[in-house]
């Protein structure tokens, strides 16, 4: 299959036009969008003066949508997620979840962080029970719910294990179970798989898609990895850097569960990356992030490796 044939379903949204439409109406078919980010801006003072992390971000996410925010390191995507989570305050603008304005953290929006953030003083099942205990479920109820979600991430056998006994991927699966057990309206995922090895990440991409197909939770997922975004998202939002602005949106219409190494996924990623190259180059001039060497990433997917005759005569 050629690259262009594989990317037919990639829909490039004219962002400015969409933005204008959004300002007019908020309700779709009489239902509030799950999340509305309106004119959110945020800046902070650094040694070199004021840095505009986010500038006039407008965004709507519908019930059950899986949205990825992609951008280079330092583009403010984590800040945006933290503002949606209520862990940070925007300088201006508003964030609405359903019909209420967000003012601080809430159990309707549970965050899964880059490090699993499991509590080392609790064992695995008690970690999953943590939020349920705060919600006031009694011991037996919360144990049952916790086990149910541990089963969903295939870790019920490890319910009595201590956190330090788990691998990185297992910890992140427990964190997912812990978040889902809260039955939140929305999952906010902040580069949850970026510190895992490629194979574990591949498995977790598959598991997360299956969980999403089962639960149909609204998911806002932040990543710097375009391939990951194409693999997971219904819609990809590209953020530019300093100031952090929404640059482009893409709809990904591929059947699920998708595979990281699927031809179509690779094709989509390549196209998105090509369009972003200018933007990325801008970032690379000011800062190279060794963890996310975007240039290498691009080369891996854009350049066809030279063919070498290894014999065999086929």
């Amino acid at each position: 299959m050629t690259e262009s044939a594989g990317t037919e379903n990639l829909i490039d949204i004219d962002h400015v036009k969409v933005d204008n439409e959004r300002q007019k109406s908020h309700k779709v078919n009489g239902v509030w969008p799950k999340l509305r980010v309106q004119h959110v801006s945020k800046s902070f003072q650094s040694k070199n003066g004021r840095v505009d992390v986010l500038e006039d971000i407008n965004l709507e996410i519908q019930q059950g949508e899986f949205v990825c925010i992609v951008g280079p390191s330092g583009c403010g995507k984590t800040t945006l997620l933290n503002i949606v989570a209520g862990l940070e305050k925007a300088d201006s603008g508003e964030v609405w979840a359903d019909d209420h304005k967000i003012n601080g953290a809430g159990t309707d929006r549970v965050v899964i962080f880059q490090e699993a953030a499991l509590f080392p003083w609790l064992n695995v099942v008690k970690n999953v029970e943590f939020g349920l205990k705060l919600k006031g479920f009694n011991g037996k109820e919360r144990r049952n719910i916790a086990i149910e979600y541990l089963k969903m991430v295939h870790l019920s056998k490890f319910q009595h294990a201590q956190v330090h006994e788990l691998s990185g991927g297992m910890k992140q699966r427990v964190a997912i179970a812990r978040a889902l057990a809260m039955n939140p309206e929305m999952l906010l995922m902040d580069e949850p798989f970026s510190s895992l090895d490629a194979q574990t990440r591949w498995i977790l991409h598959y598991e997360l898609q299956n969980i999403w197909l089962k639960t149909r939770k609204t998911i806002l997922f932040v990543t710097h990895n375009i391939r990951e975004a194409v693999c997971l998202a219904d819609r990809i939002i590209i953020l530019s850097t300093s100031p952090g602005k929404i640059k482009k949106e893409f709809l990904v219409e591929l059947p699920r569960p998708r595979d990281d190494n699927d031809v179509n996924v690779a094709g989509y990623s390549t196209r998105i990356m090509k369009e972003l190259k200018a933007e990325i180059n801008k970032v690379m001039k000011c800062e190279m992030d060794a963890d996310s060497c975007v240039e290498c990433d691009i080369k891996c997917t854009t350049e066809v490796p030279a063919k070498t005759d290894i014999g065999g005569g086929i």
Partner: protein
Amino acid sequence: MQSILKRTMFYILFVGLWEGLFRLGIWPEYVLPSPVSVFKTLIHGFQNHTFLIGIAISMKRIAIGYGISIVVGILLGLLIGRVRIFEETLGSFFTGLQTLPTICWLPLALLWFGLNDRSIIFLVFMGAVLSITIATDAGVKSVPSLYIRAAKTMGAKGWKLYLEVIIPAALPHIITGMKQGWSFAWRSLMAGELLIVCLGLGHLMMIGRELNDMSQVIAVMIVIIIIGILVDRLFFVKVEQRIRERWGLVKV
């Protein structure tokens, strides 16, 4: 097994040397009693219940003083660790206060509470509270903000955030502070009991001194050492071991 054998050998040698030194007769018995007479005094003291009463009274004082210091120490530590204004004011004040030997509080304690139990309990409290406060403060400050953010998104706030996240996360530090506080409390108790005459183990030592009965002094010293070791082994060592296992700080 090897180490137990070595330890037993050491104590046998130690007591043997002591007995040898006694038999040389350089010092009179009221200066250096023999291990045998110390052992007899020990048995006698337990048989006529004076040691048991002394232990009971001392333990009651330390339980009250140390108990209050744990509660107050943890609360003060949380305040200093989490609230900027307390950190800037009380924080440096307590660090300064900790350099003051506890026994320096005795004159004030006598004035405030009189020659009684409450003065001693106050000394015990002052001995332990600052160690626990400072350790709790350090523990609270070392809690990764990630835990607090994660807990907040799961609905932890107010006192539940403290109870379910901050205190458990700071527990390794708090236990270290409690252990240090215990040894300071125990010292303050003895100092207080030696100076304020109202029963207790310290008082039993003073009686020994007044009667020129060094075997009683040494017997009480042995009792104090044994209680110290027992509390350390039965409580602190076990708790620390459990925390290390749970947090994965050692291979089990």
